[in-house]
């Protein structure tokens, strides 16, 4: 196999998906999501599921693929901005003294936790094994349950779906839950575009809208969670 035979789009999708599942730091995970969207767009353009109808310089692409890419960029931007600001301050003048005291307690607890938690390898054990399982399943499932016309297509949508699901399950913070759900949405997007006998514009547009709405909902919940607990960690949410 020569260098040019390597499907770089699939490599991009696989690596960025693995990064999202493995890492805890949003500074790596959110850009990885953007790379994933770019990989999916290149993959869809390369496989010619949709006829190119737009010429940008010497490159012919489908408008639908371009819209998918823009949707992905928008969803990533929403999550990135959320991660950067991490806060929705309540109108504190409206709060009673109990609520204000609770906010101060939450801020102190979050600060203590941040200071006490350096990089711990134990936090990566479950994501690592989840990744191993996702790799095995994504390689095996296209052979056991072939849905698409090629193994590559099946690998891509199985991979995105499994990595998304596992990311949601092992997520320790709300932003990562959002990243996992967006990968799941991306998986059905690829499946529909690649396999459906007639690709309709309206469902595709609605899928894009769902991705953006999902990113906005996760951003809103993140803001509320941070405003309440001064952290995005989910274990704080479930503490009694």
């Amino acid at each position: 196999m020569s260098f040019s035979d390597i499907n770089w789009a699939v490599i991009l999708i696989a690596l960025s998906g693995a990064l999202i599942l493995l890492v805890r730091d949003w500074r790596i995970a959110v850009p990885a999501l953007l790379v994933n969207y770019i990989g999916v767009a290149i993959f869809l353009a390369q496989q010619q599921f949709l006829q190119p109808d737009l010429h940008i310089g010497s490159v012919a692409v489908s408008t639908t693929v371009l819209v998918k890419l823009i949707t992905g960029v928008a969803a990533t931007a929403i999550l990135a901005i959320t991660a950067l600001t991490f806060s929705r301050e309540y109108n504190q003048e409206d709060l009673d003294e109990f609520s204000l005291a609770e906010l101060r307690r939450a801020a102190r607890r979050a600060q203590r936790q941040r200071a006490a938690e350096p990089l711990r390898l134990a936090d990566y054990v479950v994501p690592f094994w989840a990744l191993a399982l996702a790799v095995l399943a994504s390689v095996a499932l296209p052979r056991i349950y072939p849905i698409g016309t090629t193994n590559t297509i099946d690998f891509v949508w199985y991979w995105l779906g499994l990595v998304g699901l596992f990311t949601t399950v092992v997520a320790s913070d709300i932003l990562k839950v959002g990243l996992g759900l967006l990968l799941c949405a991306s998986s059905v997007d690829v499946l529909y575009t690649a396999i459906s006998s007639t690709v309709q514009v309206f469902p595709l547009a609605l899928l894009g809208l769902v991705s953006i709405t999902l990113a906005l909902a996760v951003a809103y919940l993140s803001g509320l969670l941070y405003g309440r607990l001064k952290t995005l960690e989910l274990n704080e949410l479930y503490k009694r």
Partner: protein
Amino acid sequence: MAASCFVLRKQTRLVILAAFATMLVQIALVAQLPLDQPARLLGLTLNLDPLGRLFLLTFLAIGALAFLATWSVPHGEQFVPVALVILGLSGTTLLLLQEQYTASLLLGSTGLLAVLAIVDLPTGSSALVQRTTLATALKYLVLMLIAGVIMYMAFVLVSIYRPDVTPGGSSPAHLILALIVVGFGLRLAIVPFHSWLPDLVEDAAPMTTVLIVAVVNAVTLLFLISSIQFFFYPVEVIGGVENARSTLLLLAIGVVTALLGGVLALAQASLRRTIGYLLVYNAGMILFGLATLDSVGLAGALFETLNQMIIVLLLFLSIGLLERPDGRPLNVVRRDLLWRRPVAGTGLLCGGLALLGLPPFNGFAGKLLLYEAAARRGGPYLALLLLATALALLALLRLARERLLGPSEEVADEFPPLLGGTDLDRPADRRLEPEPRGMAVLIVFLLALCLGIGLYPQPLLATINEAIRGLTFIQPL
């Protein structure tokens, strides 16, 4: 209107009136829509059948009454705009039931929007969003998105699946069935995917719960029926003589859901969670009726869904009034709710009885049809469904004994002032405002409606029977 209401959301009364008027206008418009005359728009087929119109009118009426209820029942600042969008999307989904991809995505979007209503706080609230409310919203968001993705995946697979051709030697029929069970099970709160519903009932504002259970879940059920008719039955994934196993699986899931809902309702200490599990029980009963795939069971399931919409509004309106401040500390367990709030207490008790299908309320005719369908399937099914209802009834009676019918806690202070004390030293009288008259009238109206439908269900049943006559997957009796 949703956008306008969002801009004006701090003008609570104005926004409620505007939303109520919007519902009335929509009811008038829907009543004039021609039936069974498909129209094409943006490449999509929009169609309204008699069943769709019946449910759409009921959604709008429930929406209108829910908006009126928010006049007195606590609700979030953004409830009205979010509810308007959800009702709009639900109505659109009903018109687009034949467009499987679009409908499943619209349902997914509805779920995402409902999250905004769950975490909503009233205007100018001095409290923080509760942790449990945030956890419930997050759980609902994740589960509804996963349900949407799974349903969409099932439809994509159905679109390429041909029963006679099995590429690669393996048939995806079982995979499609599994996706349908999980996807629709998550949305309809079927065991073991039910955990979001009791949490939602416990943590969300009463009218938000009404919107999700009465409107969004009912649309999901109609979508499932439409999907069986147009997609799953033609490719023999559900229904048909050759495919009895899938039907048996759905029947078993329905029975287990009803039983577990009844058992878990019995084990709850909280009023709201008990009602939440009673709703899970009813979801199981409805699924059972649908899974029989015969005219009696399906009519029972649809009639029960329609009744549930009215009952859920009655129950949560009553809960909203029962939870109004009554001068006692918030952590005190109230045991005399029926005596303190007679109308709301009666609404809760009768609503519960109607949900379980006891005569003379509206649930009776629906449950009778479901029992008849179960009896046709075999004695054990009937026995199990009756056992589930008995357990649910026990749970309701326990709730009534512990929360509604306890002795009055208002003890008249007959003692004279202590030596050296004056009348000023006595504790202040507990403040107990009377039930708001408008809400009391609304509860009485809903109770009368439940009784009216219960005593004279024929017109509704005739409409439902007429509507399901055209369904091809119904097996002859």
